[in-house]
């Protein structure tokens, strides 16, 4: 059986409202942990978020959303890359952030 990890995720304001959750949630994610596997777990637990972070068809990140962890911008990295150890062991959260744009 694959080991699982307790992954902390912080969502932007509007997605917290859609899912009716607080500032931070914790997801159980099997190894290896990547942005893709975290989003898979997030959408399975909170299906109302499907399509809001990545496109339904292409599964690509929406252009105005960014992924950060450990003070690094991971948005342009391949989404299947392993996340930093500090995220997989729960010391740091994965941040999903809405780009600062618009009015």
């Amino acid at each position, binding site marked *: 059986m694959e080991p699982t990890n307790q992954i902390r995720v912080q969502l932007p304001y*509007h997605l917290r409202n859609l899912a009716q959750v607080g500032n931070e949630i914790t997801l159980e994610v099997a190894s290896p942990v990547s942005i893709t596997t975290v989003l898979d777990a997030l959408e399975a637990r909170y299906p*109302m978020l499907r399509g809001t972070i990545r496109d*339904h068809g292409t599964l690509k990140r929406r252009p105005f959303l960014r992924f950060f962890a450990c003070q690094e911008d991971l948005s342009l990295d391949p989404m299947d890359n392993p996340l930093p150890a500090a995220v997989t062991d729960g010391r740091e959260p994965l941040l999903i952030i809405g780009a600062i744009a618009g009015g």
Partner: protein
Amino acid sequence: MSSVRVLVGTHKGAFVLTSDGKRNKWDVSGPHFAGWEIYHLKGSTVDPNRIYASQTSGWFGQVLQRSDDGGKTWHQPGVPAGQEPAPGPPQAVPNKFVYDQSPETGKPLTTHQFYDGSQHPWEFKRVWHLEPCLKNPDTVFAGVEDAAIFRSTDGGENWHELSGLRGHPTGPFWSPGAGGMCLHTIVIDPKNTDRMYVAISAAGAFRTDDGGQTWKPINKGLYSKYIPDPNAEVGHCVHRIALHPSKPDTLFMQKHWDVMRTDDAGDNWTKISGNLPTDFGFCIDVHAHEPETVYVVPIKSDSEHFPMDGALRVFRSKSGGNEWEALTNGLPQKDCYVNVLRDAMAVDKLDDCGIYFGTTGGQVYVSPNGGDKWQPIVENLPSVLSVEVQTLA
């Protein structure tokens, strides 16, 4: 006593305005979905407590919301927040609008004409308009950008494209207007619900007589001076279509320029702009009890989207067009530079028909007497995208 419920979509949320039949005192609830663009909300005529809402965002894409209690509470159909998801694959994906390219039901549709004349892939952006079925509250149609029509038969939980529209041979020649290539108008014939009309900017108007399986362009008589061919089958920027339930073969149209009518279900159109000071505009609607009484809000031009001379005037024709009178009582007659968008006018069905419209300045006006006198219901909402009215028993 009868009452009315006004559903207002704005750039920053939805609002529900309610009043008794006098329409003097109003309760305002909202913002619902605060911070999101609400392109359109509309209630079912079969079950008025059933309301659908299109919630969109440049950041988070499309969300579809539903209320089963007249707008008090909302949820995404099939995936209510706060409940553990059922095991197994999801049964409902209420915001998934995927163009049909299956060999069984659709043609392998690929591209449409883009601004520069090149061919461009169809890309879903948002739902502009929701039109509940006149018979079944669980069936609802969605007009989307890039232009297509979708149908849900399970209360908005899942959507399937009626691909015969986009599969029409003219599809590759459709091109976007300034607001994108959107299907923004869906009108169902109340006497024959297999007959529906849609309007697309900038392709034109289309009609189906078989419940959405096949469609034909109905643009004969439309003249658009930017199109060299006066008989062009598509390419027209239709802004809005309205009909009266008692005369469903008569349609009224606000085109980019020109106000038009047809008396043969769209086969032929005639210009009825008559004495309007300008016939550019977006919205158009018909009095609930007088099928030849029509309302428009003329806008100065396609380059200046505000009323002429800073005076907000609704124009009414009681003769089905050509002869129009300005309605100004209660509306600002100086320094007013708002717009009234295509889905932002509606009528109620009370004995003394009420007319409603919302502006890009955040005002929603009502005339409880067919347009003779107007009063603001609210004056400082975000920019209004849509107004719909429910007349409740």
